[in-house]
């Protein structure tokens, strides 16, 4: 399929990328605006950043978002991995049933899953707040962890654990020393998916949280009703962090690969 990209194709791609990046650049630019205006750039200032860091609500929203994502990731990764290992040894009917049930939150629109949680918590007279939000996050993250661990288990040689136990391992040791290391890439990517899903979530958090507990999304949702350039600063900071993380994630392996190649060359010389 590979060929030289023609000029009109380059222009097309450039237009699409401009469409993707224009609003992001716009927000970053206006986060440095001196005035409150969102349409006229009057001069450079860092006041919105100062205001943002001084804003208690924003700081607590960031705190809740990170804390919730960390707890949801840890719990859903552990539970999801344990369940996936169990499922790989279970009969077909149980496996199919669990897969179908897990499909519910993945295929349903977020808002349906969200109101389900809300009705469930309030019917049980559980006060909504941080705990209910974390529980809901754990619930919608586990299916994604299972989904990314299962394929690794399918390609795993079933005799490996058997052999480990024949050589004197207890089932726990076989699990910890043989199975887990083999499926580690699946566990890591599952954890990453869980973290981003939780960190970015808006709809499910909105319906499962209680008064006084907002994550970043809920804060933005409530704050945009009036002109509020501190959101520009908050958005810009999110953009910086994500850009740095993604560049590091993509550049570090590239550098490592190059170094590896150099070392190889050194060896052959």
């Amino acid at each position, binding site marked *: *399929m590979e060929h030289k990209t023609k000029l009109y*194709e380059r222009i097309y791609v450039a237009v699409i990328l401009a469409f993707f990046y224009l*609003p*992001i650049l716009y927000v970053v630019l*206006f986060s440095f605006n001196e005035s409150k205006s969102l349409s006229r750039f009057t001069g450079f200032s860092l006041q919105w950043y100062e205001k943002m860091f001084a804003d208690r609500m924003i700081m607590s929203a960031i705190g809740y978002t990170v804390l919730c994502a960390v707890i949801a990731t840890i719990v859903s990764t552990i539970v999801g991995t344990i369940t996936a290992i169990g499922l790989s040894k279970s009969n077909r009917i149980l496996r199919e049933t669990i897969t179908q049930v897990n499909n519910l939150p993945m295929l349903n629109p977020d808002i*349906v*899953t969200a109101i389900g949680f*809300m*009705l469930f918590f309030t019917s049980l007279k559980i006060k909504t707040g941080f705990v209910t939000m974390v529980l809901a996050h754990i619930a919608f993250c586990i299916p994604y962890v299972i989904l990314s661990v299962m394929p690794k288990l399918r390609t795993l040689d079933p005799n490996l654990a058997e052999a480990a136990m024949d050589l004197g391992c207890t089932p726990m040791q076989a*699990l910890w020393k043989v199975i887990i290391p083999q499926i580690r890439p699946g566990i890591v990517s599952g954890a990453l998916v869980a973290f981003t899903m939780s960190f970015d979530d808006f709809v499910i958090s909105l319906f499962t949280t209680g008064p006084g507990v907002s994550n970043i999304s809920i804060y933005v949702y409530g704050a945009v009703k009036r002109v509020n350039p501190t959101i520009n600063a908050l958005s810009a900071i999110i953009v910086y962090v994500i850009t740095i993380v993604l560049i590091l994630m993509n550049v570090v392996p590239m550098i490592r690969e190059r170094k590896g190649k150099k070392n190889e060359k050194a060896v052959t010389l």
Partner: protein
Amino acid sequence: MKSFSKMVYPYIVWAFVMIVLPMVMIVLYAFTVKGNSVLTFQFTLDNFARFFRDTIFPTVLWRSLKMAFITTGLCILIGYPTAYIFAKMKPNNQAIMILLVTLPMWINVLVRTYAWRGLLGYVDLSTEMRVYVGMIYNFMPFMILEIYTSLSKIDPNLIVASHDLGANDAETFRRVILPLSLPGVVSGITLVFLPAVSSFFIPKFLGGGQYVLIGNLIEDYFITSGDWNFGSAISLIMAIIILISMYVMRKLDHENKEVLD
């Protein structure tokens, strides 16, 4: 070895409580009388009757479906050529392009939609057009990535073979590349259509509160007016329509695969 299968048991309980029960709750609420405890289950069909009695609700439902259809169509129309151009680039450039498309997706959806608000202040667009821009902006990356994945899996030898057998570029595209990339289009459709139907903050942010979609109705009945029974009925109607359209999509995809085989 068999003992490992016991490791599923805790999750069976969890999945029943945290996934199945909440869904049952929606159904229960949708079929019960307002203000009545669900535990004393007072069956009614009135919530559904109310939805279809008033013209406003079917109108909003129709508007949401239409909007999701058009959004999905535009995402294919704009996204397919993009993915196609990507798939023809040098491998290194392909990786860069995919990274560039993925990067905005990592930024919070609300922040991304909020960003459009200021930018759209410069152009004179109707409320509906603004909402379309927001929808396409948020969902097109999914479409591009799905189509790109299926295009990049196509064996290049198939294209060489097609040319060797006398097909020109257009014929090769129509008879080889397009059918083989359809699975990507299908999964792209599910990734765009689903969130587009139920979206409620995109119309709220960009439509200035005047543009109401089915998701906004559900949000209002749950958060503002507190009529959970009617809200549940609306959600149930939406969920059923989505289920039916997904089923039809899968069926079409299967038939397409059978033809290919």
